[in-house]
């Protein structure tokens, strides 16, 4: 038995799950309906697929949510996991699930997948027969992903960097890399049986003034770590920046760079898709304006020809949306995509060249790190600030990069910290902003920039 299989056997020996029949799971995946695979759907559609967020504790309520979504003709169903499960605390999840079932109030902020188990969950997934995307934020997602795949969930979001730097204060980053390596391998192993399993990175990160070069570098690195293990279908993503042009520039560059770096490590047979997140930062408190913002995001997703969009709701500033509100958002977005026609192609050579150069500089510095494996090189690069995510709550993050919006709302780097972008590129970025010398003026500008979508 391989080391990997040994690890698998240990992981699934858990008092909270019944039993795990790997042969049966393999059989299920081999014969599963193609409609469950987003990789298949990507291949056969030429519009932007629509995916909301959503997870409820009980089977019943999750089923009702899916019914609502089905009525709105959703393309990709979400399964959001509760936070106890994310911390591998299946005991609390179990207790809260029982309370939720008894009292008909939600005592969990998501679906406790491990506790429900794959036999049960698979019934729901196959019933609706649409692709499901797993959203969690778990550093050690090994058991969770085994359960998801066995349930018929063939898209797994996250990654060692994107699910850690925005979501955690002190979970050890090196451990996250290893746990995710396991996830990639499981996904890769299953990918030969039927359509490939899709992995998706979480490009929004902290959704707060993250410069395009940082987002894209992290997307590329998570992609490479995944392809290295044999994954054949991968989605890179980013969220609305606040400038239409910067979104277009990012889309063009990320597509080109994904191709370039996949080839660079010798992978030619993987499919890379682009996912666009509707505005992930602070929302306006006026729900009408939130609708406008959401629709504007959809328009941009169409303009940049994203393969999938992940949507928000008009309740974003207030709290977790109701099922109906969520389904309404799906319907609105589908309507917009359907009626929005004759989209022009946008390119901006100067901006694209600058961004490309920044990305190559950072990627080169990562590859030049002296460590032996890619994940260790990336680990070191984060630790020493070669990769630096603004507003990350994680203690390992360097926090030296400073960004600000220019007059067209493009996010610009004004302090590079340890990020190895060239003097020329930095000068280009800085040339776009008229910066006050006064430090409080700069701080006020940053506060304003965070609230850029407020009414």
């Amino acid at each position: 038995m391989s080391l990997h299989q040994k690890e698998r056997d240990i992981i699934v020996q858990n008092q909270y799950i019944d039993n795990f029949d790997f042969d049966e799971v393999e059989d299920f995946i081999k014969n599963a309906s193609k409609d469950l695979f987003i990789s298949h759907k990507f291949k056969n559609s030429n519009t932007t697929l629509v995916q909301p967020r959503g997870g409820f504790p009980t089977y019943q309520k999750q089923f009702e949510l899916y019914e609502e979504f089905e009525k709105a003709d959703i393309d990709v169903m979400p399964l959001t996991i509760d936070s106890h499960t994310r911390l591998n605390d299946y005991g609390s999840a179990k207790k809260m699930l029982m309370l939720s079932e008894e009292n008909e109030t939600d005592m969990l902020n998501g679906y406790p997948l491990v506790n429900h188990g794959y036999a049960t969950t698979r019934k729901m997934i196959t019933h609706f027969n649409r692709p499901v995307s797993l959203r969690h934020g778990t550093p050690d997602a090994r058991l969770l992903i085994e359960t998801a795949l066995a349930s018929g969930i063939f898209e797994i979001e996250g990654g060692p960097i994107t699910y850690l730097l925005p979501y955690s204060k002190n979970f050890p980053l090196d451990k996250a890399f290893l746990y995710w390596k396991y996830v990639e391998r499981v996904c890769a192993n299953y990918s030969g049986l039927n359509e490939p399993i899709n992995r998706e990175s979480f490009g929004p990160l902290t959704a707060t003034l993250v410069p395009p070069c940082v987002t894209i570098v992290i997307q590329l690195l998570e992609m490479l770590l995944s392809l290295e293990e044999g994954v054949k279908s991968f989605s890179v993503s980013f969220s609305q920046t606040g400038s239409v042009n910067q979104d277009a520039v990012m889309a063009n560059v990320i597509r080109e760079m994904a191709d370039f770096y996949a080839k660079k490590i010798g992978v030619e047979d993987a499919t890379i898709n682009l996912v666009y997140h509707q505005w992930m930062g602070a929302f306006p408190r006026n729900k009408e304006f939130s609708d406008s913002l959401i629709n504007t995001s959809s328009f941009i997703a169409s303009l940049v020809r994203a393969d999938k969009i992940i949507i928000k709701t008009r309740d974003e500033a207030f709290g977790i949306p109701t099922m109906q509100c969520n389904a309404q958002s799906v319907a609105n977005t589908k309507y917009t995509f359907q009626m929005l026609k004759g989209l022009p192609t946008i390119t901006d050579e100067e901006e694209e060249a600058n961004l490309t150069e920044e990305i190559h500089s950072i990627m080169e510095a990562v590859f030049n790190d002296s460590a032996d494996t890619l994940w260790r090189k990336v680990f070191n690069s984060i630790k020493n600030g070669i990769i630096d995510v603004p507003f990350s709550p994680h203690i390992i993050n360097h926090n030296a990069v400073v960004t600000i919006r220019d007059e067209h709302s493009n996010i610009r780097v004004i302090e590079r910290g340890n990020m190895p972008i060239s003097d020329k590129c930095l000068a280009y970025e800085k040339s776009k902003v008229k910066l006050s010398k006064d430090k409080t003026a700069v701080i006020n500008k940053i506060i304003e920039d965070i609230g850029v979508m407020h009414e």
Partner: protein
Amino acid sequence: MNKKVVTGVVGNDIHVVANRLIDISLQARGFEVFNLGVNTYLEEFIDAVVETDADVLLISSLNGEAEGWCRELQFLRAEYELKDVIFMIGGNLSVGEAANIEEIVPKYKSYGFDLVFHQVDLNIGLDTLEEFIGHKS
């Protein structure tokens, strides 16, 4: 002498943006700030208040978990004899969209907070804090 404030985000909440702004704004207003950051438990807050002899404890909560974490505040407050410390909380204090928005402030006051701000802008909160301090002294 500058007033001392201990601040941070309670529970498993990792929304850090407001926390960074609170840090900057408090300093700009002349407070001495001890920022515990995100993902801080109530006991850690109380420890820090005692240790620094703080005048104010300013807790943020954004992800809706606050209620679960703050019920024991009254108890801790009594135990540590923190009568003179101003306890303040703000952010997004309910899960989902609060059905009974008027009940939120009284509820948190009953947990032992002096000042409660649900979905209220930071600067309004800090203005109120300064007024409150003025009245007390």
